C-alpha cells in the first residue's frame, strides 16, 4: 500500500488522475485569466497600431529573445526532470529541477534588468511617463503609454507566475532530494511541470505580441 494515498481515494491511479485533471482545469482558468488581458491588448492594438509599434520598438529585442530561449530550455529540462522521476532516477530529477530553477531565476533576472531600464528611461506608465525621442510617424504618447501599460500588466503577471513557479520547483526539488518520490508516486513533480510549461506557453505568446510588432 502506497503511503501517499489519501484516505478518500481508492487507489493511487485514481489519486494521480484526480491531481492531473485538477491541474489541467486550473490551467484552463489561468488561460482565461491571461486571456482577459490578451483581449484588452488586442482591442488597443487594433485601434492604435502605430503607437504599439513605437512602444514595441523601445523594448530590448535581444533580452526578449534570450529570455524566450531560456524559458524554452527550462521547459525542456523540466520535461526531462519529470521523465527522470518517472523512471526512478532521483539524482537526475534533483539535478534537472535545479537547472530549471536556475533558468527561471535567470529569466527573472533579465526581466528585472529590462524593468530597471524602463524606469530609467521613463517608460513606466504613470505620472513620470515621457516619450522623448522623435519618431517618424506621429503617435499619441498616451497610446504608447497604453502599450506600456499592457506590457507591464502582462509581463508583470507573468513574472508573478514565474516566481510562484520557482517556489514550486524549489519545493519539488527539496522533496525529491528527501526521497519523497518514486516511479509510483511523483505527482508533485508532474503537477509542477504542468504549471511550469504553462507559464512558458504564456511567454511564447507574449514574446511576439510585445517584442515583435512592426
Amino acid at each position, binding site marked *: 500500500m502506497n503511503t501517499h494515498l489519501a484516505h478518500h481515494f481508492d487507489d493511487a491511479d485514481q489519486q494521480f488522475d484526480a491531481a492531473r485533471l485538477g491541474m489541467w482545469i486550473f490551467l484552463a482558468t489561468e488561460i482565461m485569466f491571461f486571456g482577459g488581458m490578451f483581449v484588452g491588448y488586442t482591442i488597443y492594438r487594433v485601434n492604435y497600431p502605430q503607437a504599439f509599434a513605437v512602444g514595441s520598438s523601445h523594448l530590448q529585442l535581444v533580452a526578449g529573445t534570450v529570455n524566450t530561449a531560456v524559458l524554452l530550455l527550462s521547459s525542456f529540462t523540466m520535461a526531462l526532470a519529470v521523465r527522470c522521476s518517472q523512471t526512478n532516477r532521483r539524482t537526475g530529477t534533483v539535478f534537472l529541477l535545479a537547472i530549471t530553477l536556475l533558468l527561471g531565476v535567470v529569466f527573472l533576472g533579465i526581466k528585472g534588468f529590462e524593468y530597471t531600464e524602463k524606469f530609467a528611461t521613463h517608460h513606466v506608465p504613470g505620472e513620470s511617463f515621457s516619450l522623448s525621442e522623435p519618431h517618424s510617424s506621429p503617435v*499619441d504618447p498616451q497610446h504608447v503609454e497604453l502599450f506600456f501599460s499592457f506590457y507591464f500588466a502582462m509581463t508583470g503577471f507573468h513574472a508573478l507566475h514565474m516566481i510562484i513557479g520557482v517556489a514550486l520547483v524549489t519545493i519539488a526539488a527539496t522533496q525529491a532530494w528527501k526521497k519523497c518520490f518514486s516511479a509510483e508516486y511523483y505527482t508533485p513533480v508532474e503537477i509542477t511541470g504542468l504549471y511550469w510549461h504553462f507559464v512558458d506557453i504564456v511567454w511564447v505568446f507574449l514574446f511576439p505580441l510585445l517584442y515583435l510588432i512592426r
Partner: protein
Amino acid sequence: MDTSFRLFPEQASTAAEQVDRLYVFLLGVASFFTLLIFLLIVYFVIKYRHGARADRSQVSGNRYWILEITWSLIPLGLTMIMFGWGADLFFKVHQPPPDCIEINVLAKQWMWKIQHADGKQEINSLHIPVGKPVKLRMISQDVIHSFFVPSFRVKQDVLPGRYTTIWFQPTKTGRYHLFCAEYCGTSHSRMTGEIVVQQPAEYAQWLRGASSESPEAAGESLYDQFRCGTCHNNPTNPRCPPLDGIFGRMVRLEDGSTLQADEAYLRESILDPTAQVVAGYKPVMPTYKGQIGEEEVFQLIAYLKSLQPPQQRTPKSGPPPFETPNDTDQQP
C-alpha cells in the same frame, strides 16, 4: 408633466407606440406561460395530491420525445419572433432621418448641459418642437451617464471620450422626465431634467427670445473690462500665449510636462497664474484672485471656450506653446 399615479407611461414619441406594441406582445407571451405553468401546478397538486384517487397509470413510448421536442421548438419560435421584431425596431431607432434638428448634449456630474445649434444653451431642460425629428450628439465630461426619456422610450449611454447619438420624434406637447439612467456617483438621482415639447411657433419664439446675456457674451465683456486682450490678443507681443482655441488643447509647461487646457486649468490660470506657466513664457501675469468671483470665472471660461482655434498658422520660432490637441476634449 403629469404626476398622477399611473400604471403605464405616457406615449409621447413615434418610437413609444412601436415599442409599446412589442412590449404588449411580450407581456402576452409572458402572462400566458406564467399562467399556464401556475395553473398546471395548482391543477396537478390538487388532482394528484397524496391520498387522492386518480389515474396514475404512466404513459410510455414516443410521446415523451414528442413532448420534449414540442416544448423546445415553441419557445424557440417565439423567441425568434421577439428577436426579429426587436432588432428591426432597434435598427430604426439607430437610423435618424436626414432632416433632424441637431442638438449637442454635454453630461457631467451631475447635470445635463444642452447646446442648441444656434448657440442657445440650457441646463437640465431641453426644448424641442413637436412633430420634428431631433438628433442628439452626446458626450460626457467625466463618467458614464445615460440619457433616458421614459415617455419617448429611448435611452442611450453618454460616454466620456466618444460621441454617442440618439434620435426621437415627439408626438405630443408637454413636459417629460429626463433621467440619468447610468449610475454616476453621489447625486446620480438628482441628475434629472425635463424635456419641454412645444408647438413649433412657441419653440421658435423660445429659441429667439428670452435669453438674458449668454455666458459667452458676459465673459467677453469681462475680458474687455479686465483688458486681457492687451496682452493675449497681440500677436507681436511674445509675453503672452494667444488664447484662440485654447480650450481643450495640450499645453506644454515650463517643467516639460504637458496638460490639457480644461476648465480647471483655465480657472487656475486666472486665479493663480504662476502655478503652471506655459513653456516659453515668463510668469508675468497678475493674479485676479479676489477681484472676480466664481460666477465670473465661469463666464470667462465660457468665452474662452467659444474662441475658435486659429487658422493653420505656422509658428515663427521658438518652442510651439501648444501641442496637437488630443482626439478628445477631455481633461488629463
